[in-house]
C-alpha cells in the first residue's frame, strides 16, 4: 500500500476544489455582489483563507508526489514544467499552476506596495491557475475517468463559467437611469 500515492491524489482533488471556491468568491467580490449579511471584508477574508488552504493542499500534493514511488517523479521534476517523465505536458501544467499560485500569493502580500491597479492585473493570473489546474487534473489525474471526479470537474467548470458570465454581464450592464 502506498499511502503517499493516495495522499497525493486526495490532496490534488481537495486543492482543486479549494482553488475553485476561491475563484468563485473572487468573482463575487469583483462583481460587487453585496449580500446583506455578508460585508465585503468578510467575503474577502474567506476568499483569502480558501486560497491559503488551497496552497497548503498543493504543498501536500507536491511533497507526497515527490515521496511516492508508484509514479516516480523527483522534486526537481515537479518544480520544472515538462521535466517529468510521466505525462510531461499535463504534469507541467500542474507545475505552472502551482508556481502561478505562488505568484498570486506573493503579489497579494505586496498589494500595498504594488498599488491596486498593478495588483489587480497580477491577480488575473488566478484564472490561469484555475484553468491550468483543471487541465492538469483531467490530463494527468489517475482518477480523471472516475464518474465522481468528472462530476466535480463539470460542477467546477460550470460554476466558474457561470460566475464569469455574471461578472461580465454586470460590467456590461448600463448604469441605472437617474430620475
Amino acid at each position, binding site marked *: *500500500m*502506498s*499511502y503517499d*500515492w*493516495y*495522499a497525493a*491524489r*486526495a*490532496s490534488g*482533488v*481537495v486543492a482543486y*476544489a*479549494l482553488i475553485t*471556491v476561491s475563484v468563485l468568491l473572487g468573482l463575487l467580490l469583483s462583481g460587487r455582489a453585496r449580500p446583506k*449579511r*455578508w*460585508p465585503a*471584508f*468578510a*467575503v474577502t*477574508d*474567506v476568499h483569502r*483563507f*480558501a486560497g491559503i*488552504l488551497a496552497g497548503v*493542499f498543493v504543498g501536500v500534493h507536491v511533497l507526497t508526489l515527490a515521496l511516492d514511488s*508508484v*509514479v*516516480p517523479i523527483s522534486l526537481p521534476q515537479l518544480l520544472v514544467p515538462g521535466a517529468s*517523465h*510521466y*505525462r*510531461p505536458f499535463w504534469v507541467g501544467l500542474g507545475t505552472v499552476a502551482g508556481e502561478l499560485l505562488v505568484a498570486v500569493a506573493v503579489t497579494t502580500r505586496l498589494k500595498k506596495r504594488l498599488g491596486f491597479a498593478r495588483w489587480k492585473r497580477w491577480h488575473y493570473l488566478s484564472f490561469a491557475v484555475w484553468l491550468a489546474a483543471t487541465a492538469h487534473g483531467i490530463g494527468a489525474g*489517475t*482518477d*480523471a*475517468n*472516475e464518474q*465522481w471526479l468528472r462530476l466535480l470537474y463539470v460542477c467546477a467548470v460550470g460554476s466558474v463559467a457561470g460566475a464569469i458570465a455574471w461578472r461580465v454581464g454586470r460590467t456590461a450592464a448600463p448604469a441605472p437611469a437617474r430620475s
Partner: protein
Amino acid sequence: MPNDSRIEAGRRRANASKRALALVAAGGFVAMLGVARHTHPGTASSGATGTSRALAGVSSTQGSLSLGGGTLASPSPSSGTPSQVQTSTS
C-alpha cells in the same frame, strides 16, 4: 452601535465559514484518501485501464513492480524458467 454589531456579525460569519471550510477540506481529504484507496489501480475492478493510465510513460528500473496487492516478479535470466506472475486483489 448598529454599525459595530454589523461588522462584528460579519467577522463572526467569516470566522465560522473559515472553520467550516477547513473542516470540509480536512474531511474531504480523508474521504478522498478512502476513495483513492478504493479506486487504486491495483485493486479496483476497472484496474486494467487504471493501471495503464497511472503507469503510462513510466519506466521502472527496479527488479519488480509492486502495485498494492499484486506483484509482478521480474524474469530471472539465470534460472531459465518462465517468470511467475502473482496476482491478488484485496
